[in-house]
């Protein structure tokens, strides 16, 4: 049984990625491919909706970190939304909560890009 799933969609020119389950070094390649796919399509407004993400290790956080500069250089950003308390704790451990924009839900995240 798979422990990690990923899907995505584009809403008002904002790419929304939905990681689901357990994101660790074993699954990280699929997560990275999804982010790279949007960058290659010149979509630099990216929301990661963490509503169904139960776990993230440094492998997943490394991908969010590794592309941020390129995305910001091109006028975009990565915003994280709907993060559960247990996943937020992990982001907070390494200081992600001071660098990334964490918002309550997807609608607010998209509006921050489009307004």
């Amino acid at each position, binding site marked *: 049984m798979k422990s990690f799933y990923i899907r995505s969609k584009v809403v008002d020119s904002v790419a929304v990625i939905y990681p689901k389950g357990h994101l660790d070094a074993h699954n990280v390649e699929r997560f990275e491919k999804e982010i790279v796919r949007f960058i290659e399509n010149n979509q630099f407004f990216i929301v990661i909706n963490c509503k169904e993400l139960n776990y993230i290790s440094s492998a997943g956080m490394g991908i969010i970190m590794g592309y941020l500069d390129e995305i910001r250089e091109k006028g975009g950003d990565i915003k994280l939304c709907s993060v559960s308390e247990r996943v937020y704790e992990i982001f907070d451990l*390494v200081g992600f909560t001071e660098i990334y924009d964490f918002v309550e839900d997807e609608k607010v995240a998209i509006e921050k890009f489009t307004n």
Partner: protein
Amino acid sequence: MFSKKPELSISIPSRTELLKMVVDLADHIATLNQFPPAECRKIALAVDEAITNVIKHSYRNDLDKDIKLEFYTSSEGLKVKLLFAGVPPVLEKVGVNLNKMIKEKKKGGLGVELMRRIMDSVVYDTSKNINTCEMIKWKKKRSAV
């Protein structure tokens, strides 16, 4: 203090698909040792990071190597010890600068920092071609002697 014999000892092949199993195991052992749930999850993450580092850096993603994992419990805390061969780990002594890592487009380097922030002690050692990573988490903060 911890007993000389581990409470639990398992050997696993160096495969990332087993990481979730190990995370669940470490969380369970920490729970049995009466750590609060949030601490159990963090300890499990530290174990994930330690094993991921062994697979990526010491075994260079070779799937046919072994990692021995030992858990030592006591009323005061939990000790997790990894024993592995391969390339001895080389660790940076200073903490991470997240802004610098983002500028340098780095994707790695957070794992050991997480281990250090979660656990009270993280010690790597190499002796007779066997590497060890020993991590300790105390239930109560110990004052410096």
